[in-house]
């Protein structure tokens, strides 16, 4: 705004250059930090990944793309990729739908609106370590979840699906990942609700009035007005969600330890990277995994950009 008002004033041509210079000066420090700490690290990781690397003494032997080959042919890494993609494919739409649903509800003029907004957002404030530990207790074989479903008589339904009364939800290879998906859908939906709420409020009231005059019902209004006009919101939430999903780590680590137990059911790409670095002390291999992860996330983001058209200009 200052720049715009200044621009109206007539001034000498070299004044503009001075201003531009000042502008660059202002961004120089954060940009330098970004280049060194972010871009620099990525380039350095790329460098490390083509060596056999000793943590203490540096490069030992040039290995070219061997680390990448080893990773892609390792069945555990393949499982990690599969698990991560499965998590992204199930968790992202589920949590987006939940977030949107909550946002639409708390966007209504209802009593206790603020309370509900706070309540739905609450799990997002708790630290992921704390809430995952809580979840492990809830979903334990003799945890609250199994007790409650027994009490309300849901066990016949669960046994139809093949689950015993004492199902070990996080400890069983068949259910571990889905249990983590539920946990994260619950904890993250509040954050997505907040994003959607901001988007919802940017939709002009006139559009709704026009729809009401045309006799649109609640569902039609949502389907034809709200949902399409939320496109920038969808793009933002989906991008954030996919990046977050591909970086799934803490819940998997706390739920299944550094080995992704049981039987790699909770092994994710980042956990595999962590395992390579801090359990096997193979840092060049871990760097290669990091680069692969970078490529996967970058590709996913580009694909989303295509799907949602041009990104809104914020």
């Amino acid at each position, binding site marked *: 705004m200052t720049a715009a008002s200044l621009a109206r004033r007539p001034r000498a041509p*070299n004044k503009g*250059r*001075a201003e531009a*210079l*000042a502008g*660059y*000066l202002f961004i*120089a*420090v954060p*940009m*330098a930090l970004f*280049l*060194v700490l972010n871009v*620099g*690290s990525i*380039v*350095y990781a790329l*460098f490390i990944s083509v060596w056999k690397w*000793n*943590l*203490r*003494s*540096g*490069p030992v032997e040039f290995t070219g793309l061997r680390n990448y080959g080893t990773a892609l042919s390792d069945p555990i890494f393949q499982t990690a990729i599969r698990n991560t993609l499965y998590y992204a494919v199930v968790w992202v739409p589920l949590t987006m739908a939940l977030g949107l649903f909550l946002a639409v509800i708390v966007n209504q003029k209802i009593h206790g609106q603020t309370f509900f907004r706070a309540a739905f957002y609450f799990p997002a404030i708790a630290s992921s370590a704390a809430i995952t530990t809580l979840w492990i207790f809830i979903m*334990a*074989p*003799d*945890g609250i979840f199994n007790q409650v479903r027994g009490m309300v008589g849901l066990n016949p339904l669960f046994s139809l699906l093949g689950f015993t009364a*004492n199902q*070990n939800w*996080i*400890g*069983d*290879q*068949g259910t571990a990942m889905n249990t983590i998906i539920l946990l994260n859908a619950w904890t993250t939906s509040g954050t997505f609700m907040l994003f959607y709420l901001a988007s919802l409020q940017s939709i002009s009231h006139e559009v709704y009035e026009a729809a009401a005059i045309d006799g649109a019902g609640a569902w039609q209004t949502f389907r034809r007005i709200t949902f399409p006009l939320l496109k920038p919101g969808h793009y933002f939430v989906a991008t954030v969600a996919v990046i977050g999903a591909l970086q799934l780590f803490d819940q998997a680590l706390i739920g299944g330890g550094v*080995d992704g*137990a*049981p*039987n*790699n059911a909770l092994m994710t790409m980042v956990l595999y990277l962590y395992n390579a*670095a*801090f*359990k*096997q*002390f*193979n*840092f060049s291999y871990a760097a290669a995994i990091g680069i692969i992860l970078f490529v996967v996330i970058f590709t996913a983001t580009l694909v989303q950009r295509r799907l949602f058209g041009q990104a809104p200009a914020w």
Partner: protein
Amino acid sequence: MRRQLLAALAALTIVVTACGGSATSSPSQAAPSAAASAASASASAAAPASAAASASPAGFDANAISGPVVLSGWQSSPAEGNALTQALLSFQATYPNVKVDYQPVAGDYPTVMAPKFASHDVPDLFYVNADYAQEWIAGGFLAPLDDYIAKSAFDTSQFFPGYASIFKGADGKTYGFPKDGNTIAMAYNTALVTSAPKTLDALVTLAQSLKGKSGLKAPICLNPGLDRGLAFLYAQGGSLLTADGKASAIDTAPSKAAIQWYMDLFKSGLGMTASDMGAGWCGDALGKKSAAIIFEGGWLDPSMTSTYPDVKYAWAQLPTGSSGSPVTISFTVSYSIGADSKNKDQAWVLLQYLTGKDGMTKWTQGGVALPARKDVPTPAGKDVLAASSAFAKPGSGFMVGWPAVQKAFQDAFTAQIQGKTFNADPVITATKAAIDKALAGG
């Protein structure tokens, strides 16, 4: 115009600083670190040499050494902190010229230590868990101690071989001495088990009689991995490696039979994992009375006293199996000197005290762990566990790549018991592949 010039100058300065920063931190970090490691290599080569020159005829005189030493390790309980404080106080009384600066590490220990190794800024003396000792030795993070052992005539014969052997590198050199140890033995609820089984056959018979007793989810709590399974593998006459440690022995007939026997405990419902009992670990399962018999080490005692004081239990040696002789596995942690330590002499003075008879006596009287030496008296209440040290084999860290071997076994074993197929063959195939890969150098 002057302001513009000033601004340009400032911008230039920032750009130059930024470039300088990126140059040191990214592509050429290899060069300074290589130089630093060369420097420290020459320093470490020089240090013992000069020590040898100054004190050559008399060897290493610990009392003549003075200066600071930084000691680091993790600390898992206040009791552990107190025990270490006692040991360090008595060290300071004996060697007043060496000043100990104790800096415990919070958080995941290897994760915290890794950047220290990378930046050549390490504590002088620190804990090394057997789990990753071979990786740290192979990585060159630890200083060899052979010169110090020879010069100060340090008596290594008193260490239990099961503990001390872990900290020898592939080059035959010694990279640390055990600060203490822990063995795996059988703990049982005395309200349910009146006399401890002496053999594994008797254990199975006892477990069958306990099955279905009130509150018990299973008679025995078992881990689906080698962290306990290895003890039973040895007890039943099997082995992971051949005697010389150079080849896999997991696919021999006794090994196969042993793993199938262990898996059948899960099949018959005599054994269950802590996770399936809704417990964090088997000690928890004993405390909650979900299991009557568990296989743990000395760490069980403080946890039972503080969390489940009403549950009465007793210790017994691991029952003998078809191998006929008593055997179990043990875990240990060393004191090692950092390869980049700047105070190696001071660190050695502290190391030889803490792993020596007096220091280890002070430390183990704290009740946290067992002595790793034969000449240290057994702490109160640790008779069974301490006696097991004499015949215990290393439970981890005895080969490079052990974490991957352990993971391969546990993944395959879990798949079998959760898939209810209970077949030991896929476990053996997966473990053998991991062992072969590790022995071939990863």
